[in-house]
């Protein structure tokens, strides 16, 4: 794991900027620290009463207008400089870089899920090619998390119910820690991911090796959802308008609302329009759009937004390589189970590399002996794993919190077997 504090070549341009700001404030503060504390110590010594001596005649000094004016003016100038410099760095951090790749990041207890434009998704690991800026669209499915890359000196909260944005400039190849920085429960301190910045050639090779994602690009998924959710009943993509505004070119457009205000149709606006259409009604259109809060998951909302962006000519770089659905690809054993483990959220608590997080690691789990809370042992065979997934409270492993959710009724028999088959492959 990379150390956050590295002298030498900075991982990103933001690292250098923020560090320079810190250095400036440190130097100026150090000056005032030495001045004030120095005077404190100096006066204490210089004006101490000598042992056994009589208290000296102290002068009746009650104020000094000039001095007091100076020590109001100088600190004011100093803090104004801190404010301004801090604002400049902040502005740079918040400036959208042109040509950024959009990557959605969803936090949920206790993992980070990354969804790429080509439809691929990964858990706790994000890979990007060096030199190409990235726009992270952050949200959460449950409680507030925070996305923190110490090496980049960047952080932004992941708040359920809204999108936050963070821009990355991956300027140096390497692996960097991503830490959750907003307390979110028992798994907060083990909720970590890795940012892997790769040479372009290595990145391309990795994508080749991983093979085409077995599915549509994110925008492609969005297109399919728009078609099947009935949006086209009221919204045309282009041409003659129907009941609601056309979707072509909608992203980024300025929109006049029924109350007279104007907003920009960004990700947050589109998300709100889907989940809460009555919040902002476009002027001149009837307020009849139904809500999709119950019918669309947050991932699906993200996909639709990616599609709408593509209709505005906003191409997330990698959606150019839109892959068609691959049918009946022969999956290696455990592949289906592996994908299920990733999508069902198991990795929020269980690792596959042996490290202990909220729950026991899956590595070496199958077939091993397990000590249970309340005494007794069990062998982690198929029946045990099946029970743990369906009714986890039946047997809790000693030393672990009793927080595993039940999957009974939420996972089909077929999927359950696939998961167990995958766990079997994770030997010591």
């Amino acid at each position, binding site marked *: *794991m990379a*150390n956050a504090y590295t002298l030498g070549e900075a991982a990103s341009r933001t690292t250098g900027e*923020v560090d320079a700001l*810190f250095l400036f*404030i440190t130097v100026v*503060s150090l000056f*005032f*620290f030495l001045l*004030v*504390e120095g005077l*404190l110590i100096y006066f*204490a010594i210089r*004006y*101490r*009463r000598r042992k056994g001596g009589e*208290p*000296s005649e*102290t*002068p*009746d*000094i*009650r*104020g*000094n207008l000039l001095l007091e004016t100076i*020590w109001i003016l100088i*600190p004011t100038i100093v*803090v104004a400089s*801190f*404010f301004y*410099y*801090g*604002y400049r*760095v*902040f502005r740079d*951090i918040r400036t959208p870089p042109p040509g950024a790749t959009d990557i959605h990041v969803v936090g949920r207890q206790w993992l980070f899920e990354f969804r790429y434009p080509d439809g691929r998704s990964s858990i706790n690991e994000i890979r990007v090619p060096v030199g190409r800026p990235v726009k992270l669209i952050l949200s959460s499915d449950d*409680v*507030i998390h925070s996305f*923190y890359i*110490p090496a980049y000196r*960047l*952080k*932004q*909260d992941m*708040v359920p*119910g*809204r999108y936050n944005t963070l821009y990355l400039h991956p300027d140096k190849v390497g692996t960097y*820690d991503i*830490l959750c*920085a*907003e*307390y979110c*429960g*028992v*798994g*907060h*301190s*083990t909720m970590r991911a890795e940012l892997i910045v790769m040479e372009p050639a290595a990145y391309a090779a990795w994508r080749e090796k991983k093979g085409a994602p077995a599915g549509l690009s994110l925008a492609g998924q969005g297109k399919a959802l728009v078609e099947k959710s009935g949006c086209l009943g009221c919204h045309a993509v282009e041409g003659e308008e129907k009941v609601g505004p056309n979707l072509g070119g909608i992203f980024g457009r300025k929109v006049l609302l029924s109350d007279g205000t104007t907003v920009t149709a960004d990700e947050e606006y589109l998300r709100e329009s889907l989940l809460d259409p009555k919040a902002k009604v476009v002027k001149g259109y009837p307020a009849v759009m139904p809500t999709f809060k119950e019918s669309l998951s947050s991932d699906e909302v993200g996909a639709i937004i990616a599609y709408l962006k593509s209709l505005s000519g906003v191409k997330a770089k990698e959606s150019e390589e839109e892959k068609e659905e691959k049918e009946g690809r022969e999956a290696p054993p455990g592949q289906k189970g592996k994908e299920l483990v990733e999508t069902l959220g198991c990795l929020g608590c269980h690792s596959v590399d042996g490290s202990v997080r*909220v729950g026991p690691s899956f590595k070496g789990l199958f077939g091993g002996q397990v000590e249970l809370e309340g005494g007794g042992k069990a062998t982690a065979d198929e029946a045990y794993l099946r029970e743990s997934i369906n009714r986890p409270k039946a047997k809790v492993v000693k*030393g672990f*919190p009793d927080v595993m959710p039940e999957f009974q009724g939420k996972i089909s028999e077929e999927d359950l077997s696939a998961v167990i088959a995958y766990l079997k492959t994770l030997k010591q």
Partner: protein
Amino acid sequence: MRETTGNGEQPQNGNASPRGYLEAKGIRAWAYTLDHKRIGVMYLYTTLFFFLAGGVFALLIRLKLMYPGQHIFTNQTYNVLFTMHGALMIFLFVIPAIPSGLGNFFIPLQIGARDVAFPRLNLMSYWIFVAGIVVILFSLGRPMDTGWTFYTPYSARTSADVTVLSFGIFLVGMSSILTGLNFLVTIHKLRAPGMTWHRMPLFIWSMYATSIIQVLATPVVGITFLLLAMERLFGVGFFDPTKGGDPILFQHFFWFYSHPVVYVMILPAMGIISEIIPAFSRKPIFGYKAIAYSSLAIAGFGFFVWGHHMFVTGMSATAAIIFSLLTYSVAIPTAIKVFNWLATMYRGSITFESPMLYALTFIFLFVVGGLTGMFLGALGADIHVHDTYFIVAHFHYTMVGGTVMGLLAGLHFWFPKMTGRMLSEKMAVPAWLLIFIGFNVTFFTQFILGFEGMPRRYAQYPAQFQALNIVSTVGSWILAAGILIMFANFVHGLFRGALAPPNPWNALSLEWQTGSPPATENFEEIPTVTDWPYGYAGRQT
């Protein structure tokens, strides 16, 4: 020259008992007392108890943090430990200790009154405080694990008993409001004849500003916790994104109180320093009006900066810029005070008894805390260190290096007055030294840890942070040792301390014109005041 008894003369108790207000014994003499001094003492005992309890939790936290992995405690237990440490320390110690403890005892004495404006309300405030504590203790059946900031949605959903806890905190807040109200009316209406506003001790000015904040800000946190309880109980959805609510709204409400409350914590401590520095430098306070009005300025500005706790929540750039600018504006009145204290020492005749040691330590450590706040007000820098150990170090330097040192300074300064006995300087100095060293070792390392990227509230942490964590833990042991010796000094002083004269420090404010301890009715005759209480210049004693 004031028309009061001089220094070092007969106690004003006259024919009354040398035990003064402590004469009447028994539980009922305390539980039903209307004497502000006894109420203040009860608050001090209660809050100092929670200082020790919170300190135990701190030691347990630091013990666990010697190991990067899950060790000694489960992660869940660790989460409970840091939540309890924060909640107990803040709500049951740092906020009430100086105002309700020392403030209750000394405000009437310093303004020449017999009691506060509403003595029965005062007693009621104390018992509401205790009721709140009892309710909080009831919540420990399912102990809190949210962090003392209780952010939603987590706090609305956790199985910890946040509902009962919320009611407990509501009660504690009510106690705070009523105390602030009492002090405001007292200071306005009960000053002795001749005590104009500009002849009030600066401790009174600071308590006045503090009371304004308490009265205006605390109701907001009251409604916040009420709403949190309602969300858990009845599905009220203001903070619930699945119901169209906004979890960030909770943060706005919470910090609208919790930022001003840090000024409730620091202003009384600063007031104490303004009393001690002139007395132990034998020199008038420099810039009386600047210090007085800067307290009001801090109280006022402090209401407009809450957003600086929320820079990374996704607020608009405009809002962030405004909050950053206003945050820096609070630094100016604060700096003014520090310069005024230094200027007071200039050409003074300084002695270093324990009150002065702690007062100087306050200045030293609070300056560090304040300067590190300069990083946090800068938008570009705060993003990196928000929610890391840098923040933890910053607020410990200001709250412990600041408020607690101020409290300890006040306790050492006023111990003879409250108890009628002297503390042992022989015990006080080594205790102080251990506290000073231990504190810096514990918390300075945390600035480094935070800058390096160690987030706060981490039960487990990346292994590269272990070395500094061990150093910090060792510091906590040194700090604990100092605190224990200091408490031993208090206990020793209570039972075996040398009898105290009415004015051991030859200070000039009115409380020193009474006996040590003062009579129940404070003054035989209410004094008439003709001068400010900082006329130390040129005095032979």
